[in-house]
């Protein structure tokens, strides 16, 4: 234990107490006279200067940092992240039923698979006619008139399938979505 060495008007023990505020710059702004006394003391005292050099070194200052307290809602965040999404999981399976029914209705409305095949071949024919029209070799193809019930069924099927996909993409993404939140808290 170093004994009192009143260089600059301050004892070593007093300088050690003021060291942290001096290094942080707080002492210079609140009490410039004392800060000047500390500076004079450090210029003449080897032990205190060594302490000061250690205090201003980056590893020492990092080590002196205290671990931040975890946020109050950390447990809730973790539990919410790992909780299985039961409702969405149920929707993910249940939506297959209306989709299947809609497809069955559309296939029935188009006179079965033969109707679907004729729709596909008609599409190819119209595409070819459209290309020929673009080349100036044919008339513009006439677009088939769709039944309003078929259009409604197709639009409902498209919306249902898109909603279904949005649920499925969230289902698989739960674990991935939890990671950024936990990383944020770890960084804090």
């Amino acid at each position, binding site marked *: 234990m170093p004994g009192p060495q009143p260089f600059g008007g301050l004892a070593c023990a007093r300088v050690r107490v003021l060291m942290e505020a001096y290094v942080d710059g707080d002492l210079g702004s609140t009490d410039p006279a004392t800060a000047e006394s500390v500076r004079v003391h450090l210029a003449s005292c080897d032990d205190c200067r060594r302490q000061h050099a250690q205090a201003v070194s980056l590893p020492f200052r990092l080590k002196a940092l205290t671990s931040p307290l975890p946020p109050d809602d950390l447990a809730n965040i973790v539990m919410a992240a790992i909780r299985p999404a039961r409702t969405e999981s149920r929707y*993910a399976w249940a939506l297959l039923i209306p989709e299947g029914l809609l497809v069955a209705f559309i296939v029935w409305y188009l006179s079965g698979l033969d109707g679907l095949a004729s729709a596909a071949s008609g599409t190819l024919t119209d595409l070819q006619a459209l290309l020929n029209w673009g080349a100036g070799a044919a008339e513009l193809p006439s677009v088939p008139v769709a039944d309003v019930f078929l259009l409604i069924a197709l*639009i409902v099927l498209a919306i249902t399938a898109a909603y279904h996909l949005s649920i499925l993409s969230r289902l698989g993404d739960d674990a991935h979505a939890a990671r950024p939140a936990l990383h944020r808290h770890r960084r804090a």
Partner: protein
Amino acid sequence: MSDSPYQPEPIQAPPARWNGRWGWPIVIAVLALIGVLLAVADIALNSPWLGPLSEAVVGPPVVTTSHNNRAPGSDRFERTRPIQAFTFRSPFRPIGAVNPLQGLRALLSNGAALILIALAVLVVFPDRARGAIQRLEDRRGAVIALVAGVATLMLTLAALLLLRFTLIFLVLIPVLVAAAVAVAVFGIACIALALGRLMQHRLGLGPTHPLVASLAGALIVFDLAVIPYAGLVALAAVVIAGLGIAVVTRFGSETGWSFADLKW
């Protein structure tokens, strides 16, 4: 609380049982042999209820050349005759012509194409493939991919039929079909690598290049596709799951489907 910085626990790889240099070549050779044998069986059984689709992967049971347009003196270049010499007729009704060379041809044509496409996708999109495979290897990832594939198929069907009834957007139909095929191919490549990694883990194979694991996985997909009677169904399931995993992960993107960029 300790002041030492957080250190994650090192992830231990499963102990390699076949850590030798011949582990992967043996597995790949066995998978290729299984593929040829299954293709031979598939050709011989020639699933009648599938109609022309029964030859979609394995090709026709007997190769014939047209005699109508043959150039004079081209008989000496005829190569089907020695191939036909390997054809064995079975007396039993469900079993048709058995030709090992036809099975090998199926592996070298459709199987090789599948492998090359899978490897090309992984070479071109390694980051995106990793994202998709990680999702696939998650809990229930395969089931989610399959269901998402079914939903994507329905969405594509509805969109195609809706575009059919327009004139301006009719030209988008080939674009939509091409996009669906590209997405499915990406998904199949990811499934191939995921299957290779799964096999590596289950069989305890040593570490290897990811493309080698992908090659083994693509061979598994080919083997599934040539299972007699059920091959097309299995291949359809793989294609649908590939479509689903690619759509769910937005082509393997890190951010997935997010509207965060639109909120400013």
